[in-house]
């Protein structure tokens, strides 16, 4: 399954505003996307509770994965979003 690593740029990690913006973008994709931290189990990237449960802070690396038509584009777009400081 295609996957990319992304480094979280938002200063307080994935919560509230950064999480909302990210989830909106995930829901717009044509394919389901998962997110995982380290060796953790991949979770639904459109779930705010799963995102919060990752406990991912600024500088942590997460892995996004998706399969099917448009997967590569989706991953590239979402990686770029995570690597932007959405708290700013």
């Amino acid at each position, binding site marked *: 399954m295609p996957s990319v690593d992304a480094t979280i740029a938002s200063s*307080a*990690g994935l*919560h*509230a*505003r950064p*999480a*909302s913006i990210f*989830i909106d973008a995930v829901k717009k994709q044509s394919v389901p996307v998962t997110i995982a931290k380290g060796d953790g189990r991949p*979770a*639904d990237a*459109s*779930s*705010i*509770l*799963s995102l*919060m*449960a990752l*406990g991912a802070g600024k500088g942590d690396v997460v892995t996004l994965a998706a399969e099917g038509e448009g997967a590569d584009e989706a991953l590239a777009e979402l990686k770029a979003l995570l690597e932007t400081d959405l708290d700013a």
Partner: protein
Amino acid sequence: MTATEQSQTLVGIGVGRGIAIGRVLRMPDPLPEPATTPSTIGPDSERDRVTAALQATGADIRERGERAGGKAQEVLEAQALMADDPTLRSEIDTRIDNGATAERAVHEAFGGFRDMLVGLGGYMAERAADLDDVAQRIIARLSGVAAPGVPESDEPFVLVARDLAPADTALLDLDKVLALVTSDGGPTSHTAILAREKSITAVVGVVGARELVDGTDVVVNAGSGEVVVAPSADDVARAEQARAAQLNRASVPIGPGQLADGTAVPLLANLGSTDGIEGALAAGAEGVGLFRTEFLFLDAGSSAPTVAAQYAHYSKLLRGFSGKKVVVRALDAGADKPLPFLNDAHEENPALGLRGLRALRAAEQILRDQLTALARAASESDADLWVMAPMVSTVEETRYFVSLARELGIKTAGVMVEVPSSALLADRVLGEADFASIGTNDLTQYTLAADRMLGSVSSFQDPWHPAVLRLVGEVGRAGSAHGKSVGICGEAAADPLLAVVLVGLGATTLSMSPSAIADVRAELRQHTREQAVQLAQAALRADDARGARDAVNSLVAELASS
């Protein structure tokens, strides 16, 4: 209840002396945990109910967010995402498929995520409250009851609650709150502290407050601790008159604290950080009676702050009170306020454990560094620095602290009297110490053996109790015999009438939240020293806190009419 029914008087513990007249609005109680009884309508119907409740709750939260705007909208948007979270939904469905009701499935699914967030600690753990709020809203909708939370109204109201949590008070529009009435909670509960800080009329721990319903007219009298339900026209007229008289009195101009006969009673501020300096000065504080230093240590992380870092803070504090008295309390921590570099051992009963001066003595370098930093800051300032040790329980501890403080260059060293043993031996404690300051919250806790943090015994936590007052009197007598200052720095000093009683018992200075100073200043001006002593004697003769308050109130009325 309507106004045609006979009026009824409920009794609790008043905070301050305010009087308010208004309509009740209840804060809904937290929902009970949904029962584990299996569903009787089957998984498909339960799933439909959940779908409807989640959608409606999410929409409701989004709508509130749009109304609020700004930061609040961001928080509410995140909460709305929780309501339509796909992972949560599958957790709920799994439980429903196993036979749970919609309510129970929502409760358990949220509970699982909640535990996970709490396990992560820090910022995420604080979000657990947001999650709880969403869960309560969904369950309320499923059960067809009002969602818990702060009620909203365009008209001012008397808020009736079990007790207010800090999260509730943050959302409360205080301009609309005429008074607070709680069924639980004592004089040191969050509600009471909030009321004192914001000068809101409040009566806490009111038996029968749970039965008050929305729309009932009440008169809330904090001075007498009474809530008159469905008052008569006479009751209302009397209350309005009393309130008008009070408003007149509160306009005593800012100036030094003194009794009607001119006896000076300096009014000092309790501060928890240097942020409060301006507010304290604006309120007319004549100095600082209690500067808590815990924040310096709590913010420092895994090791104690350096002498240099502490010195910078103390210098800032002393600069703010140039030419005035500043009483700093040495670090007050223990198992109840654990610090990794002090005592973070688990104790069954932290209030009776290695805390206050006991903990400092076990880690003497921390105390030495703090005293060194304080002495250095004082040597460059014209403020009058006094330093006191927290939770001193023996004469020997007093001697230890005073001699260490002197060795490190502190000119005026005293102790806090919070433990009955120190009050009972105050004559000898004050033989060693330069001054004493009575912490009435802890003194009450230890005298009545009632945990300050425990709601079920909060009715014991009343500094009006004659046993507490008698101990204060012991310290006052010793202070006067030795010619030494006896301060009060607990919540008791912020209760205007109790403040007069404490002066009658021999307190020479009063220290309180800056917002309480105006009311206390106005009350002190109403009584002579001789009257304060009479009021104190009336309080001491009572059997309990309620009796003491009643006796003092009626004597005040008698003295005023004579």
